[in-house]
């Protein structure tokens, strides 16, 4: 997976995690589903943690010369 995709994934996964938190606070909450949802959140948090450890920035200096039009 590329770093770009990683960054996308982290943002997406954080959104998913926030959605899960919202579910736990909503009227849809049921004990029966809670354990599965918690397991899902735990997995997401671990994936985020793993991805944060490996992804790097890609910095490119443009070859274009800005000293003239």
């Amino acid at each position, binding site marked *: 997976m590329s*770093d*770009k995709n*990683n*960054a*996308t994934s*982290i*943002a997406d996964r*954080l959104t998913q*995690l*926030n959605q*899960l*938190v919202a579910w*736990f*606070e909503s009227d849809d*909450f049921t*004990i029966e589903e*809670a*354990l599965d*949802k*918690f397991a899902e*959140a*735990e997995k*997401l*948090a671990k994936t*985020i*943690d793993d991805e*944060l*450890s*490996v*992804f*790097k*920035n*890609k*910095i*490119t*200096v*443009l070859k*274009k010369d*800005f*000293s003239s*039009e």
Partner: protein
Amino acid sequence: MENQSLKLSVSEFIAITNQTLEYAYPSVDIEGEVASFKVNQGKFVFFDIKDAESSIGCFMMVFALRIPIEDGMKVVIRAVPKLTKWGKFSLTVQSVRPSGEGSLKKSFELLKAKLDKEGLFAPERKRPLPLMPRRVAIISSTGAAGYADFCKILDDRWGGLEVETAHVQVQGEVAPDQMIRALQYFNEQESLPEVIVMIRGGGSADDLACFNDELLVRAVAASRVPVLTGIGHEVDESLVDLAADVAASTPSNAAQLLVPERADIRRRAKQSLRHILSATEASIVATKLQNHQVLERALLRVSDRHARHEQQLSSTVALLQAYDPKGALMRGYAIVRGDMTKGATIDIETKQLVVTAEVQHVRQK
């Protein structure tokens, strides 16, 4: 001898003089004080530049004047000397920059007031930066310490960024135009970056003066892409900072404002998990309590019903006992069995005896 001397028309003389001047002074920097400043027809700028003893007339086009000037300001002009066709000597000015701290400050205040009046610094124009940008453009000098600081903090805090850097001069007379071209370049990309960061480390007021260039300030304000600046030290404030969407105090601070920190994201993820866990535990406790209450209510109801049944049973038993003939015998009554006709034999049962008797007389009550 007289015939060998050069005979020229007036126009030819002026043309040759100008060629000679141009050869001697392709351009010259002159420091002095502005006097008799005026703008004609909104296009032509006239002023004198003078010192204690001398004064020269200056002419320039208004678009070449990148800073506001007024009488009394000390400036450095870059100009070409010229003899006009009316025989008047003047300087055709290519650029003007303030000279000395007082003039820099004055020029800064004049331009700030002008652009502020136009609304370029208005808070409602400011756009928020993306929370987790992926495509970032940088305008800086790649050799500058401020750029290195910015990149280091960026790498320490976050990853996954696609960063394109436009290497430009961030100091001196040519710097504003180079930065304007870089801004235009990024704004004209088919796929726009999410944010443009302008980076420059600390320096003297003169070093940072290029960030007060009117056209550059206007280009920053007009950028389609939000602009984040990290220019100079915390105490420095440029007009580019005021026009930017977000102004960081230093290049390092710009990196901090641009991206979140890995540790923060980890902490947020853990907080979310803890929150979910405590919500689940609280729900389990609440459900148990609810179950217990339901059970208690059910038991109470069963107990009530049992008590009611017991009461009904005892009433029925009491009623049955009341109907028991033996009870009547016990209370002294007797049971008579047999045909109630005269001469018939009947049995009379008491508590203790059964008496056989003959019916002697029968009458209606």
